[in-house]
């Protein structure tokens, strides 16, 4: 079971988003991809948890959180958590918070896009590529 969540935090307020992948029965495979952009003074708080209970043997769980911070006033507080109570599992998570890659911007500018257009294209690609 794979799902993707898109978050657009684009207003100057605090956003709280909580996600949990709970494994309470054996043998389940769960994948959650979260893609977020933060701009216009937004303050994004994400807590993403994978929780595997003792009886949930043979679980396979992956959580991937990627956040792009687009301007100076915006910020992110990201907490990926794991609570694993049995050994027969594969569980991992990854979280990346970064600005837009200036190399990518330059590449697009070299193709004739201005900064705003370049950023828009990159962001669209970021949000759709899960």
């Amino acid at each position, binding site marked *: 079971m794979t799902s993707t969540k898109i978050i657009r935090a684009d207003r100057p307020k605090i956003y709280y988003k909580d996600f949990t992948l709970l494994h309470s029965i054996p043998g389940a495979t769960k994948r959650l991809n979260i893609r977020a952009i933060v701009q216009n003074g937004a303050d994004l708080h994400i807590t993403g948890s994978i929780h595997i209970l*003792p009886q949930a043997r043979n679980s396979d769980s992956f959580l991937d959180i990627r956040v792009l911070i687009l301007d100076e006033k915006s910020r992110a507080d990201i907490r990926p958590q*794991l609570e694993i109570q049995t050994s027969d*599992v594969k*569980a*991992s998570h*990854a979280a*990346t*918070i970064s*600005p837009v890659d200036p190399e990518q911007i330059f590449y697009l500018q070299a193709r004739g896009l201005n900064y705003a257009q370049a950023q828009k294209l990159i962001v669209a690609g970021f949000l759709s590529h899960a």
Partner: protein
Amino acid sequence: MSRFAPISSSTLTPSPDYPLGHSDQVDYEFRSTAGLTEHTVRQISTFKNEPPWMLNIRLSALAEFNHMPTPKWGGDLSRIDFAKIHYYLKPSQQSVGDWDKVDSRIKKTFDKIGVPQAEREMLAGVKAQFDSEVIYSSLKSFLAKKGVIFLGMDEGLRQYPDLVRQYFGKLVPSADNKLAALNTAVWSGGSFVYIPPNTQVDLPLQAYFRINSPAAGQFERTLIIAEEGSRVHYVEGCSAPAYSDGSLHAAVVEIFVKKGATVQYTTVQNWYKNVYNLVTKRARVEEEGHMRWVDGNLGSRLTMKYPSCFLTGRKATGETLSLALAGSHQHQDTGAKMYHLAPETSSQILAKSVSFAGGRTSYRGMVQINPAAAGCRSKVVCDALILDPRSRSDTYPTNKVLNSTSTVEHEAIVSRVGEDQLFYLMSRGLTEHQSETLIVNGFLSPIIKQIPLEYAVEMNRLVDLEMEGSVG
């Protein structure tokens, strides 16, 4: 290397056998009554002949301690009864125990890791001191030539009060957390290290060599000052299982890494399984300074320790390599914190843990990049091995980025030893236990590589032994 059961008599006269012969030093055998009172704190300060400003620091810390609640996060601290603890203990100069009565598990470990007999007795609390006078004197003259100060903290305060006053409590104030307040009120022992500008100390400084304060550090306070362009590697702890009479250890380590200086602080901790090991370790790193914490946690009933770096100068770097092993009835709640307060700073955290036989490891970490800290990078990797279904592993990281020019990457993987990996090694003739141990040591090897060789070899053998027992 001097962790052992401090059992003392209750006389208040100086012992005639005190071997150090430092003529300006007066030490008494003393054991305070149980419980933490103003009276106890005053007694401690008086016995150490401290300047009034240190007494004041202790007293206001005591007030903070009484004010603050016991933390409810992290491990379970509910069983600690602060009223029952003796807060000041001085080791006796005579033999205080019987080798035959020492726990056979401890003896077996000494055997396994090859600790010489004389050291075994010291470590097991049988003999109060061992004679390292010869080693210590030559080390002292070697360091004195370079202008390096390396003393016990008590001695450091006595000989260099102004220097200590300048730095003591500036990184970890007593109000920081309850255990820091406790330590500030009753601290005793620990190390005072000062490295002058542009001085490199190539030999790792070990707490082992602090002959003049061999007391078991329940509430050790360590202060390390590395001036501009200097370099030092400090090693603390001992991988032999260290018995302790006192069941609460609340230490504080403050490290000041000045411009362009490099400091590594390595700890190998293997406290016996009755000990609560709650430590605050913090470094401030100035421009282009480098700080590296290598933190090996094998023992104790509960360890809560998160070596931290405050990166206050441009291009400063901080690194924490954390290793945790939790067996039966153990909880290692460990990790690291990195605060980026200046631009172009970078940090790295590598945490590896193994839980087995019902043990629990928890990674707790913080990476924060402040608004003014432009262009910073941080990478966190935490990997956990859980060896059996009774055991547990958690990860609780926080990643806060407060500007738009920095990158933080974090990844965590929890896994077990694969059946295929075990089969592969067994097909080469290793028993199942040997295979599992080899895999666990391989898993931990990126961190063990950063520990001085003698300790690293002991660590590998210890991992082997810890896993063999798998009993509480």
